[in-house]
């Protein structure tokens, strides 16, 4: 991408509508992130159908604003009521809430905004630097490599996302089977359509996401509602301790910044690993920083440095997740999975073509991410003390709003009633998956990557006239195959090792 492309992209963004939608995204994202139980994924899933009616630049301005703001705003509830607004802000509660109780709530909110900005900006700069070279590398990829990349993505989701590998495998296989519904990608014959015309186009990915992460989440929250905990939260809100100053001193900034710069680089790398989202990044970075810091013993008891590290780590994954999404078409997390769906709706396919045929729009996405960080820095600092008011919205109000928006949103994608029914079915399934501890990530990724997986596998076998060794005789494909094997074998090996260790100790 040349300087001219970047300039032209920037010019395209200097429109009042883009700025307006960016700030609308920031406002919605802050609201969603600050409410416990509402995640950035849910926000993006609900808002994506709305953006289809907008110009693609306006739509992505809104989504980028929402995503960046929702991640940082998750820290607000973590700090003020000890309840992470999003999973990524778990470690922020460990240091943020004790700081609030010490009368340094304002400073904690300020640290959250400033270091979320730092983490976000560094990771986006990494995206700008490394996306093009990685994309250039993918030009050598053929069907076998793309098959292995898709398989690697799914295996990482099963292996890295934690939990039960066998359940993850079941969900992944279920997701891939769902992607088989519709017209066969090579021979164009109908599969699993059961004479239902609307299933001919297959199961759309976005209604499934809205069902699982939107309405399904509402159902799950209704199921697991705990009135005692709610009453305790209300009590905490009433406590209303003094917040104090918001901005850290220059000395404090100087002391924390070098560590946070390293953390943001680490978070970007973690974010680039499929399935390793902000929660994993924050825990790894916070844990390692605690080990190596001089004030490590203060971590978890109101350490300002610990909070700065957590805030940097959760926003630092954004750029990394976008690197794998834009260059390989592999979602780094559930949000980027929906963004792939959005790009496809606009007629774009993540991968090398994003950097050739849609180079200007790709530059615009990266610039929009930077602008979103700057916007939430300004908005976040200006409204740090007011943002606590968002917490006063009652959960049933949110549930009622979200359920209506899920129905409306899932219809708007294709003007299809079948999509609404699919969304509803997956909302019910989502509750069962949650109750029975089945990870939803592999299902979503299986559905998203199933088509890529199948078409490239069959293309590779057609090219090699049925020779399966084709997948391991090509160097890149072979390396990826080993990586897939390791991803599956590692948890099994670890379980056997742990069992042996436990038996020895007994």
């Amino acid at each position, binding site marked *: 991408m040349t300087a001219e492309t970047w300039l032209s992209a920037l010019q395209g963004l200097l429109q009042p509508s883009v700025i307006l939608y960016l700030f609308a995204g920031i406002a919605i994202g802050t609201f969603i992130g600050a409410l416990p139980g509402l995640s950035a994924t849910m926000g993006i899933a609900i808002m994506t159908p709305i953006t289809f009616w907008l110009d693609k630049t306006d739509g992505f301005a809104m989504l980028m604003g929402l995503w960046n703001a929702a991640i940082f705003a998750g820290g607000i509830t973590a700090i003020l009521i000890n309840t992470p607004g999003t999973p990524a802000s778990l470690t922020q509660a460990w240091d943020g809430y004790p700081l609030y109780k010490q009368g340094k709530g304002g400073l904690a909110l300020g640290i959250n905004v400033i270091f979320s900005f730092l983490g976000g900006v560094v990771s986006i700069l990494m995206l700008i630097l490394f996306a093009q070279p990685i994309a250039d590398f993918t030009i050598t990829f053929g069907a076998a490599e793309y098959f292995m990349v898709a398989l690697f993505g799914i295996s990482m989701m099963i292996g890295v996302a934690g939990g039960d590998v066998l359940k993850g*495998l079941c969900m992944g296989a279920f997701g*891939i089977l769902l992607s088989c519904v519709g017209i066969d990608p090579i*021979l164009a014959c109908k599969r699993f359509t059961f004479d239902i015309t609307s299933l001919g186009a297959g199961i759309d990915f976005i209604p499934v996401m809205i069902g699982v992460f939107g*309405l399904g989440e509402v159902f799950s929250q209704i199921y697991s509602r705990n009135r005692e905990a709610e009453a305790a939260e209300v009590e905490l809100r009433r406590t209303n301790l003094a917040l104090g100053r918001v901005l850290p001193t220059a000395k404090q900034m100087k002391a924390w910044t070098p560590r946070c710069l390293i953390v943001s680089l680490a978070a970007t790398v973690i974010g680039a690993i499929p399935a390793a989202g902000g929660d994993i990044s924050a825990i790894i970075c916070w844990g390692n920083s605690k080990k190596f810091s001089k004030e490590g013993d203060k971590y978890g008891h109101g350490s300002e440095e610990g909070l700065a590290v957590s805030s940097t780590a959760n926003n630092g994954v954004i750029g990394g997740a976008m690197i794998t999404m834009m260059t390989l078409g592999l979602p780094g997390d559930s949000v980027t999975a929906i963004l792939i769906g959005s790009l496809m709706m606009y007629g774009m396919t993540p991968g090398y073509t994003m950097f050739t045929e849609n180079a200007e729009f790709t530059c615009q996405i990266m610039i929009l991410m930077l602008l979103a960080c700057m916007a939430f820095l300004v908005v976040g600092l200006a409204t740090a003390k007011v943002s606590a008011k968002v917490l006063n919205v009652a959960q049933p109000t949110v549930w009622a709003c979200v359920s209506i928006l899920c129905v409306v949103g899932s219809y708007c994608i294709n*003007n299809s009633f079948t999509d609404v029914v699919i969304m509803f079915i997956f909302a019910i399934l989502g509750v069962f998956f949650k109750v029975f501890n089945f990870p939803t990530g592999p299902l979503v990724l299986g559905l998203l990557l199933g088509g890529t997986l199948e078409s490239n596998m*069959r293309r590779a076998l057609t090219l090699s006239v049925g020779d399966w060794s084709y997948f391991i005789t090509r160097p890149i494909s072979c390396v990826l195959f080993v990586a897939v094997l390791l991803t599956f074998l590692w948890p099994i090996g670890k379980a056997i090792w742990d069992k042996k260790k436990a038996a020895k100790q007994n």
Partner: protein
Amino acid sequence: MHKGDTIPGLLFALLGAFCLCVTYTSPMLKFGSNTSDGVPGAGFFPYIMGSVLLIFGLALMVRGIRQHGTVTYMNITPEIKGNMKVLGLMVVGVALYLAIWKITEQFLVSLVLFALYENVVLRRSKVFTIVFTVIMTVFVWALFMKGFKVSFGV
């Protein structure tokens, strides 16, 4: 429920077996292509993934049986029981919302009814219910129907 993963495992295995049966009985979905040796047909992937799901589902089921009820997912306390009732009413509400929309083809009417219903189920005050219904209906009408020109036809 008290057998851990037995029932979910069985359901996954049945789903895998169902996919295999559908693929097997469909004349278009063959494992190999008609044209050349070794080239996969339209049924190739469904066969593989159906088998994979069947195997993993069975493995999950066997593991559930071997655990013999040591894993309990649904610890139904009186509070959860109450929550399940609300959840059931919400699910029925959404189903009715979609049914009324489909039968009458009156999207806004079904939306108003659902907004009223869900607030009653969630035990909100009368004033809140009315205000919420009005705001949400106007919002959806103005943004989607007037702004984005969505027809909401079924």
